[in-house]
C-alpha cells in the first residue's frame, strides 16, 4: 500500500504542476453586462477581460489630483510591483484611437494609452541628477528604428525623439541603479512595441519627480 500511495501522490503532484504549467491563453473579450459603473459616454460596453476599469469617481479624483490630465477608461491589471526590465503589453481588442504616453519619473513608470485604454506599461530608467529628464507635455518629433547617438556613441534602438536637444524614449538596459543622460530608457521589447504603435506627433506627458529631491544645478 505504501509504495502505491506514494506513487499516486507523486502522480497527483505532477498533475498539479502540469496544470500550472499549461496555462490557458488569456480569456477572450467577453462583453460584460455588469460593468455599469463604467463611465458613460463611450459607445460600446466595456469588455471584461481582467482590465481595471476606472469608475467615474476614480477618474474625477485622478484628474483633480493631476495624476491624469485626460480621461482614461481602463488600466492594465498589474499585480504587485514591476521589476526592472519588466513590462506588460496588451492591446487586444482595444480600439484604434489617439495614442499618448504617460511617463512618471517619480514612480519610474511609463504607460501607453490608446483610445483611453492602457495598452502597455513598463519600468523606466531616466536622467541622472546632472542630466535631468525634462518634464512637461512633449510630442514625438521623429522615429528612428536604428538610431545611433552621435553624442554618446551608443546604440539607441527604437528611438522616439522628444526634444530637439536629443531627449528621447528608446530601448535601453533597464536595471536597478541605472540612470541616463536625460533620455527615458525602456526595455528593448517594450521599445519595439511602442515604436510600432506610436507615430510622429503623439503626445508624451512626462511627470517630473516631486520637488523632494535636492536640486544640485
Amino acid at each position: 500500500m505504501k509504495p502505491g500511495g506514494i506513487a499516486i501522490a507523486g502522480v497527483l503532484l505532477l498533475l498539479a504542476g502540469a496544470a500550472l504549467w499549461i496555462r490557458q491563453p488569456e480569456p477572450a473579450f467577453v462583453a460584460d453586462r455588469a460593468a455599469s459603473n463604467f463611465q458613460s459616454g463611450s459607445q460600446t460596453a466595456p469588455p471584461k477581460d481582467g482590465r481595471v476599469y476606472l469608475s467615474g469617481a476614480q477618474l474625477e479624483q485622478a484628474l483633480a489630483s493631476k495624476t491624469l490630465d485626460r480621461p482614461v477608461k481602463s488600466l492594465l491589471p498589474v499585480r504587485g510591483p514591476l521589476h526592472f526590465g519588466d513590462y506588460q503589453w496588451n492591446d487586444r481588442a482595444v480600439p484604434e484611437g489617439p495614442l499618448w504616453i504617460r511617463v512618471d519619473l517619480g514612480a519610474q513608470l511609463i504607460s501607453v494609452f490608446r483610445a483611453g485604454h492602457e495598452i502597455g506599461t513598463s519600468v523606466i530608467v531616466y536622467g541622472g541628477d546632472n542630466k535631468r529628464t525634462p518634464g512637461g507635455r512633449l510630442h514625438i518629433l521623429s522615429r528612428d528604428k536604428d538610431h545611433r547617438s552621435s553624442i554618446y556613441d551608443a546604440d539607441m534602438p527604437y528611438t522616439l525623439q522628444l526634444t530637439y536637444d536629443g531627449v528621447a524614449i528608446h530601448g535601453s538596459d533597464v536595471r536597478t541603479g541605472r540612470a541616463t543622460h536625460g533620455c527615458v530608457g525602456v526595455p528593448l521589447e517594450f521599445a519595439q512595441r511602442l515604436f510600432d504603435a506610436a507615430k510622429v506627433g503623439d503626445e508624451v506627458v512626462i511627470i517630473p519627480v516631486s520637488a523632494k529631491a535636492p536640486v544640485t544645478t
Partner: protein
Amino acid sequence: MSAAVTSTGWLSNPRNVALAALFAVAFSLAVAIGVYNRGAFPGSGPGGVGDAVRQGVNQGLNGINALGETVAGLFGSRSPGERAQGTLANMKQRRGQALHQRALPKVRRGPSAAIVGASPVPPAAAPLYNVVTDVPKTGVPGTPIGFTPTPGGPGGFLGLTPSPGGGGIFVPPPVTIAPPETPTTPTTPTTPVTPTAPVPEPASWIMMLVGFLVMGSMLRRRPRAALLSPS
C-alpha cells in the same frame, strides 16, 4: 488496492495519516487549478464551471484593486518605488573605451570664436584628441640569435659533411620578420547581455520534483538494514 484500505485500523498508522493528508492536498490543488485553467479537463467548454470560477477570481482580484483605490494608488502599487538617492548621480556604466570618446571636446556650431575674438589655438597646445600613441614598430631585422656553433671533436669547423664527432655548422632557422603592427581602431563595445533569470522553468521544477520523488521512494523501498550497514 489491497485489503488494508477497507480495514478500520488503516488510519491508526500515523504514516498513513500523513500520506492521506498529502493525497488530499495534492488532489484538491490539482482540481482547483484544473478548474481554474479549464484546460485540464477537456469536457468543460467555454461558459462552463471553470469560466465562472475564473471570472469570479479575476473579479475578486480586480475588486480588491479597484474598489477603494485611487489611480495614483494603482500606479503606485505597480511602481518599483522612487529611485534611491544614492543612485541619482549614477550615469550609464562607463564602458571600456568610453574615456577616449569623452575626452573629445563638445563641438558646438556657431560663431562663438568670431564673437569672442579669441586668439587661435597655438600649434604647440595639447592635441584636442587623445591620440593613440602606438608607434608602429620598425621592421629592422634582428640579428639571428643562436648562431653559436660548438666546435668540438675532430670534425672540421667548415666541413660540409660534419663528422659524427659532433660540431659542424649550426644553421640558424630563417627568422621571419613580422610586419609592423597597424594600430587598430577601437571597436565599439557591445552592450552587456542581460543575464537570464535565476528562476528555473516550470519544466525544470517538475523534473526536480520527480527526481526527489524517485529518490525518496528508492530510499523508502530499500530495507533499513541496508541503509544502516557499514558497507
